[in-house]
């Protein structure tokens, strides 16, 4: 079994782990690190339920090797809330009923979190395109789109408040 030492910053913590080189990032997070927020939906990089943030980019963890994260900053849904305060996207999904069974939610949140940094003031079409790598079977996306819009406003208000 080919194993490698992997060092990464995972949700703000420096970690060092021995991983099998074929270990997929999503299994590393869920099974080795017990971070079960990222979910496995399709395993072929279509559903986005496993979406995490690597060095400031949204990545599907089912099609990424843990060893490829050596030296990277990895953020999962468990690291989204800071200082006990929910992130704006988390608040917005709750307030706008942007989730039902909750299975796609961590991926949706992580993608929305990154998307709103790529595009802080998106139109509805831009939101739909920005989330097109994430599938949801419950909501029909309508309230997810509302939630992302509302999160954008929240983040802009935070901006102007701190500015």
């Amino acid at each position: 079994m080919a194993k490698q030492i992997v060092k990464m910053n995972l949700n703000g913590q420096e970690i060092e782990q021995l991983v099998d080189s074929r270990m997929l990032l999503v299994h590393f997070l869920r099974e080795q690190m017990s971070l079960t927020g990222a979910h496995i939906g399709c395993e072929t990089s279509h559903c986005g339920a496993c979406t995490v943030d690597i060095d400031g980019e949204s990545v599907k963890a089912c099609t990424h090797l843990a060893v490829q994260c050596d030296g990277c900053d990895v953020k999962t849904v468990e690291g989204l809330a800071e200082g006990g305060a929910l992130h704006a996207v988390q608040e917005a999904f709750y307030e706008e009923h942007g989730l039902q069974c909750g299975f796609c939610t961590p991926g949706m949140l992580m993608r929305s979190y990154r998307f709103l940094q790529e595009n802080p003031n998106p139109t509805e079409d831009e939101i739909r395109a920005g989330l097109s790598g994430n599938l949801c079977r419950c909501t029909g996306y309508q309230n997810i789109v509302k939630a992302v819009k509302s999160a954008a406003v929240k983040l802009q208000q935070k901006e102007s408040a701190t500015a």
Partner: protein
Amino acid sequence: MNAPVKTPEERKAELQGMGESRLRKEDARFIQGKGQYCDDIKLPGMLHMDIVRSPIAHGRIKKINKDPAMAIPGVHAVLTADDLKPLNLHWMPTLAGDVAAVLADEKVHFQMQEVAIVIADDRYIAADAVEAVEVEYEELPVVIDPYKALEPDAPVLREDLAGKTEGAHGPRDHHNHIFTWEAGDKTAADDAFANAPITVSQHMYYPRVHPCPLETCGCVASFDPIKGELTTWMTSQAPHVVRTVVSMLSGVPESKVRIISPDIGGGFGNKVGIYPGYVCAIVSSIVLGRPVKWSEDRVENISTTAFARDYHMDGHLAATEDGKILGLKVDVVADHGAFDACADPTKFPAGLFHICSGSYDIPAAHCSVKGVYTNKAPGGVAYRCSFRVTEAVYLIERMVDVLAQKLNMDKAEIRKKNFIRKEQFPYTSAFGFEYDSGDYHTALEKVLDAVDYKALRAEQEQKRNDPNCPTLMGIGLVTFTEIVGAGPSKICDILGVGMFDSCEIRIHPTGSAIARMGTITQGQGHQTTYAQIIASELGIPSEVIQVEEGDTSTAPYGLGTYGSRSTPVAGAAIAMAARKIHAKAKKIAAHLLEVAEGDSDWEIDRFKVRGNDEQFKTMSDIAWAAYNQPPEGLEPGLEAVHYYDPPNFTYPFGIYLCVVDIDKGTGESSIRRFYALDDCGTRINPMIIDGQIHGGLTEGFAVAMGQQMPFDEQGNLLGNTLMDYFLPTAVETPTWETDFTVTPSPHHPIGAKGVAESPHVGSIPTFTSAVVDAFSHLGVTHIDMPHTSYRIWKKLKEEGVQL
């Protein structure tokens, strides 16, 4: 200092009861990645199971060589049917009265059928072991088409049934025949057709599709050899029934079997069945004395667990020249796959298909459904619908369009002409269903006004007259009636267990409460809405009402969540349990207020002395007293259990209208507008209702416009990943407009009818109605689903209107 006196409105608002768009209690854990789904569960010493599957659709197993797999370090066991035989677990009973192979016994009957299982230290080793198991097959002729399966010389699929002329649902007249089931009055229907001036017929195929929830199926089985107790976490929509079945299969007393449905990542019918994977994981855990986890992958999910539909239908309508329907006849050939594992009430092998007279007053009707074996996976579940109601609604709504076209009548007009009128309710249909309530005409007018139907038709006319118009415009209209809330146990049971449901409520001394039900949420938000019912019934704020489901050791026995039964059945049980508590509370209140029971009135959250607003006891005062100073002769405590056996089904209805524009060059269709009016009776949480409707419409969109499970002649399923199986993204998904009317159910304690499935059931024929409407001026009466660009383009070409 006294707190300011609150107005009744303020007090009512604080309860967050029925009618409020209360935010969901479930969400806190989900938005922080703290949901607990089956695959999240990790137990000490847990092993992983993976499954060796047949690559071919029909064949004899000549040889299985486990050795290469057993040689892999970390592999604990490789089991085949031969290993299960001594336990008599190589076959298992299905919900439909048939048997299904747990692991293929000498023969494989469909592609990816379970042939062997491997148990290993982790899922990586298990996957390697699956690849290492060597299996030799002798290929046999494959039957994919159910009509061909019924030909005299068709290959025998189920050798285990050789000579069995009597099936679970009556006589079998062919080796691949499962049952023929009929409803209605054939003679009356034949007479109606014999004497009718107008008759129309249409063949239509409702393709095999898959519910495809985002979370696949799986379980963690943990047998404690010391205590002899079996605990299993399972993605199940019906944990109590599973417990009963597991006990029957394993011989472990039901009292020592605990089934827990944790958070479920969507069900939509996919998680009703009991699958070989579950059984094998449980057996492995019992044999090895260690926890065993099985997690299905997506290809396995689409290929093997619980398909839906696959109905080949011939519909016939008889009518007068002016469009009054006189009779309905339907003949169905139902492809059930290799084993009859449909999840239907025992007496109804075709579910509630005989709701197919729809929203219309049809004097004579008859339907016949013939179930057939083919070399496809078993299943036949209700994909976000009540047993086979989707097929029924599709059939009748298509037929009414076909009739309108033949008579050159408007779709809306012919429906108005045939609707069951408001004053006819309760209405008994020709199939014997008693529709509880409805007001179809009012709802239809509301929709036609909202979309300005006349203007849409005018625009369509103008576009049809413009040869240079690059698009075809179609208007779809469907006016459907659902039948949900199975069901009255005198006619509905599963494995002999009546389809009641249950609720247990305990009010704690300080006035907070816990309630447990026999259902299990898969995203419907039970923890939120159930609390709202109790809040309104008992005057306790939703916020302090804990709702628990899914653990058979704590929840009362219930039949689970599917067929929109949660609100109609469990919702009623909740109200009835609450009313038992309410009645006891009234006694205690009278005692505390020192008045006769008759002299106190209930108001929102309190009993007050009649005519004196100052003298009252709130439910939390009463709860304390119930435990600490109950009246003479009244037992302490404040709790109740209720098992609710519904007197009837509920009949939600809806009016859906869709406008589609079809690109004459590519066959691409774009849904310009979709207007959905739903009447689900009393509305508990409008926010959640809207969310359920958005979701149901989107699933309907997926089914109508893209979902299919294509098999080639050899039985290979082509397209079982999410690359090919159509789940729309936010980009393809239309924006939905929702509306409602409220016609409460007279027989339901709170008048609620259930809603989650109507949008799926109702939208699918609406999309087809719209696509066909775009071609109707060319004489096209029907186009089978899915309405992919490719298939629509072929129709454009056939009609010579492609660019």
